[in-house]
């Protein structure tokens, strides 16, 4: 396959940045999208040009590092996959492909296609945990039975990989899907229930503080989420948040 790539190039945070065009030949349909990027980068290096920086690590769709906006869609045209699992057979010979970084105030560009997602970490630091120490004396794991349905729902919410596709896709750059996935997971389990209200309040407060937008129930996040995280989680977080604001003393 021969393709034309239009890629966002930006030297650093301060640089203005611009799209640049790169022809590429000899792409195999069996390549993953990132292997195609490797091919381009090796050509650029051997020519003496600067390779394109992009985040990636596990290349099996679970670490959440990769983050490309491809032809106007987070993680490209395929569904329920991350960019690293997207294969070139999804594209046509001769096609022009536009590749951009995530766009959101809370995710500033560091270089080219690499963005700073540490705002997600800070939202987690605000309450994305159960306050229990590793004493070695916690009660037996089977001491509290948990209904299978609750455990399964908690698991589904917990499969979020924190890639940020939901934010990049949302016209408001809202982080509601990401935050609600963690709030839901822990609210559904008895171990996390104890501090569910505090958690919802603190995480939402931090989310707002980081500059993420509001949720207007468009639902684009759910469509583009590579792990299929459900909008139901947002509804559950809103319930937790509302009841917390009404009943909480702080």
């Amino acid at each position, binding site marked *: 396959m021969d393709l034309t790539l239009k890629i966002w190039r930006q030297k650093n945070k301060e640089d203005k940045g611009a799209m640049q065009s790169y022809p590429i030949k000899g792409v195999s349909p069996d390549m993953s999208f990132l292997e195609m990027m490797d091919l381009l980068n090796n050509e650029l290096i051997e020519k003496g040009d600067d390779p394109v920086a992009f985040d990636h690590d596990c290349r*099996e769709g679970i670490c959440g590092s990769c983050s490309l906006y491809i032809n106007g869609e987070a993680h490209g045209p395929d569904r329920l996959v991350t960019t690293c699992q997207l*294969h070139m057979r999804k594209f046509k010979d001769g096609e022009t492909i536009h590749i951009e970084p995530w766009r959101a105030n809370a995710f500033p560009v560091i270089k080219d296609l690499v963005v700073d997602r540490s705002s997600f970490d800070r939202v987690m630091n605000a309450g994305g945990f159960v306050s229990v120490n590793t004493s070695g004396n916690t009660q037996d794991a089977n001491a509290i039975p948990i209904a299978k349905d609750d455990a399964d729902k908690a698991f589904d919410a917990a*499969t979020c990989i924190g890639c940020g596709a939901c934010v990049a896709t949302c016209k408001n750059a809202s982080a509601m899907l990401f935050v609600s996935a963690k709030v839901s997971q822990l609210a559904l389990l008895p171990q996390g229930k104890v501090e569910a209200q505090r958690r919802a309040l603190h995480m939402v407060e931090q989310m707002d503080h980081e500059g993420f937008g509001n949720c207007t129930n468009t639902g684009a996040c759910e469509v583009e989420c590579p792990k299929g995280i459900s909008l139901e989680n947002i509804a559950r977080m809103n319930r937790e948040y509302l009841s917390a604001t009404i009943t909480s003393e702080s």
Partner: protein
Amino acid sequence: MTKLDSRIPEGPIAEKWTRHKNSINVVNPANKRLIDVIVVGTGLAGGSASASLAEMGYNVKAFCFQDSPRRAHSIAAQGGINAAKNYQNDGDSTYRLFYDTVKGGDYRSREANVYRLAEVSANIIDQCVAQGVPFARDYGGLLDNRSFGGVLVSRTFYAKGQTGQQLLLGAYSAMSRQIGKGKIKMYNRHEMLDVVKVDGKARGIIARDLVTGAIERHSAHAVVICSGGYGNVFFLSTNAMGSNVTAAWKIHKKGAYFANPCYTQIHPTCIPRSGDHQSKLTLMSESLRNDGRIWVPKKIEDVKAIREGKLKPTQLKEEDRDYYLERRYPAFGNLVPRDVASRAAKERCDEGFGVNNTGEAVYLDFASSFMRYGKEKAMVEGIENASPEKIRELGEGVIEAKYGNLFQMYEKIVDENPYKTPMMIYPAVHYTMGGVWVDYNLMTTIPGCYCLGEANFSDHGANRLGASALMQGLADGYFVLPYTIGDQLAHDIRTGPISTDLPEFIEAEKSVKDGLSKLINNKGTHSVDYFHKRLGKVMWDKVGMARDEKGLKEAIAEIQQIRTEFWADVRIPGGLNEMNPELEKAGRVADFLELGELFAKDALERNESCGGHFREESKTEDGEALRNDKDFAYVAAWEYTGEPKDAVLHKEELEFKDIELKQRSYK
């Protein structure tokens, strides 16, 4: 020269850990606030260690090269985590888990460490549940278990095919809580490039900020390395792209012995390579071998026809298929341990029976399971006289419920429907049992420098059992190091903060800067990947699944040659003071080029077959691995003296007091 002292406590094996905890030094809570600890890596070992140390009161500085601690490669583990809970009432116990692990490791691990691992395993599950890890449960609301290779009980806890992810996010949550409290200072996108020793003790690190390129000095009273395995020395592996040996190798060069580098696990069920563009390999969980049968065609002309697309594997008659594992190992069949299954696949493919264009693939066929499960399902649902098509359809549904996400992943990558045509698989490098030598306290031969998780050598011997890596990472980080580190740190309560202006820091920083300048100013002709791929090919061809003296000697010479060429001819674009992924890769590959040679040297020296290490010279008449306990029942710990070829061997003799040594047999 340091004498190897493994500091194994006295007493009966079941009492060693308790006695040890009672006898070692403890730092009181007020004094913990005066002590700083650096943790490098935030996978299961590093994440759990950082969180636990911070909870206890130490000031922790944690480092990871990824953009968030949640992305460490522990996240990719699929199958599960072992624990001797005996929830299934099938006779499991601490002793049985201990026994299985020592036997599975082919009697090349340290008994006392393995026993402790088994002992704390149950606590791990309690801890993770308390943190909100959503393990699979049954309808009664209790935890579910599955069975894994090499054992006779069901002791594996799991969260669908994403157990590693859930456990890592649990550790990351625990870290987040401490980061929020300011007890952990987190350094994302930072890479450790050297350890700093003051008066012989590890007192800090030199790290590069991967965003700005700035070289930073960080001091502490102890340094804990949790940087994972070195499988990427093979270029292609199931590791993440960034997984590397650099942190472990840097401490090795400063005095930490490196143990058993040749022990590598080659996992039998990975998706085969599709061509030279391939950047990494993807694992398919070992659990698939419970229901799939592995085969290649019997006749070479059928192989040719399949490769040319003239024949479909489903068209091949039963009598024309060679179910080679069932043929060679009638007792264990498709469920032989990982190392045996991998070598058998390689043997068939080397003989020319590989079924894809690269000649490196065998079939994993679920057809008979579809029918077997389908018949059962038809009975349960009361469907009489079901047609074979209907039975198969029902059976496919059963398999989908068990392995749906794996089948979907396979289809995304290979673009073939594994319900309709057999999967293709081939072995790939997956895990490294070797690593930095540590004593019972998990301390390396550098005082104050510790090593945890896959990065150390300690618990898996020459072969790791499925679902034991997650167990070890969390055991080390949650339940072992937080106690044992006090033994050393108790001497530091009056030390006060370590200054980063000491000459040792200045010198280490200068040498790091000089090394990076040398790389960037080299202006050669080839990219880093060019050299990495060449190294990987030598490793795979000559230091891979089967090794012999001639090949290993050639490999050593070839690796030395590639290393010379790398330093003369590598080209790294961009500058030092900016984000530069090629520069990061170059530093890592430079270390792989040294480790690779030590790896081959270790494999050459170990003239026996054990676990993942197979020497052609050491096999039985019918080609099976032959261990040599008389000459090789030791840990090979290598001391760095300047060049990998000059590394000095120290032997830690292994004593088996509680388990009798036996030759493994799966016939």
